[in-house]
């Protein structure tokens, strides 16, 4: 695979938006990977948390758009807690979800809840999921 790296206006706009929304700077990440080593959902992900940050650093918005990782992050902050730079990767994922238009197939709406689960799910789960992953 060969990628022509381009950091033009569009890419910069994307990077700046992520930085703006998170109040952080993705270039602070030096790719130690500790977030990925910490992530309880890493086994399900197509892009590891550190790769998400890497893709943002490289302005590769297109590669992130379809990633399952965005809807696998449950904001447990294990990554942020152990990050040597204190980068809030859950917030980065949230920022990207916020920027995505349209949202991917893994996003969620009230109709998507499995009927047998609807009865047993705690209220907070429904609220949280809808807040995080709404279509």
């Amino acid at each position, binding site marked *: 695979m060969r990628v022509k790296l381009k950091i033009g206006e569009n890419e910069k706009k994307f990077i700046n938006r992520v930085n*703006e*929304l*998170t*109040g952080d700077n993705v270039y602070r990440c030096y790719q130690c990977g500790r977030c990925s080593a910490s992530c*309880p*959902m890493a*086994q*399900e992900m197509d892009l590891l948390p550190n790769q998400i940050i890497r893709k943002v650093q490289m302005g590769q918005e297109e590669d992130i758009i379809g990633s399952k990782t965005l*809807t*696998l992050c*449950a*904001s*447990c*902050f*294990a990554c*942020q*807690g152990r990050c040597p730079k204190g980068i*809030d990767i*859950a*917030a980065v994922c*949230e*920022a990207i979800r*916020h920027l995505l238009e349209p949202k991917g197939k*893994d996003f*969620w709406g009230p109709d*998507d*809840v*499995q009927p047998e*689960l609807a009865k*047993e*799910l*705690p*209220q*907070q*789960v*429904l*609220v*949280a*999921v809808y*807040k*995080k*992953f709404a279509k």
Partner: protein
Amino acid sequence: MRVHYYPGCTLKEKATNLEDSTREAMARLDTDLVEPEGWTCCGAEYPLITEKIHGLIPPVRILRQVEIEEGSKVVTTCAFCFAVLKRANKAMLDNPTLHTRVNEYLADDILIDPTTKEKRTHFESYNGDVQVLHLLEYLRDEVGLGHLKSLVKRDLSHIKVAPYYGCRLLRPQKEVAIDDPETPTIFEDFLNAIGCTVVDFPFKQECCGSYLSASMPETSNEPSYRVLNSAKMNGANVVALSCPLCYYNMDTRQDRIKEEYLEFNGFPVLYFTQLLAWALGADVETLGLDKHLCDPRPLFDIKQNAEDVEVNL
């Protein structure tokens, strides 16, 4: 003693065993729990990006209500509510922009006093002055673990408890942590005070899969299973926790964990308040133990009446 208490929505419906045992225990500690008038859902998740300011409105409104009712503290048991309230409160203290914008929204509120029916439309800015406490912190800092220990009426030493913190009580460290996020002891100290045998296990602060159990149900089995299995491997006979969502993943969903992990044959999960109420002498019926998927009742020696037990302190 009288203290404001924010139960959160789940406790009123799906997690009544957490709510009931909390009330039972606090009554035995002579503490009146006062719910802020007209409280709503806290929003369950704290908004992580700056543009989602609306996520701050409900928690700040709840906190402001506590202040209006002249409360200086609010106690929660649900770890999710705790994290949202605590972070929102901190934002009001530390972030002038959010402080201004949220207070601008809230200035438009209309509050009707339930008794006098008077309308209130003028509000002072909320400045983050209410202290948000998790019940574990309240027990440690306000009740005192030494005092708590002196009130214990039952012997719980046969209950080997693995304290499960999960995420929301410990992270993000600078905003919510009730203790060191890697080597916390507040839960252990509490369990020791009420006479349980504490079992240390390495998954106490690992995520259970959280609300992914709704959006991607199959993904939460593994993390939940690992927590339960680790507790078991380390010699516990029960996991204690404080979050209805963790409870859902680790107890209510155990039948699905069993489907995926055939060797798993169930493991009891309790709210810490159930142990607390039991230790303080509550009747077993008040603890809601019948609601659990994995029956924890064998751990509770029903014959052991509070009055009959002599506890060596």
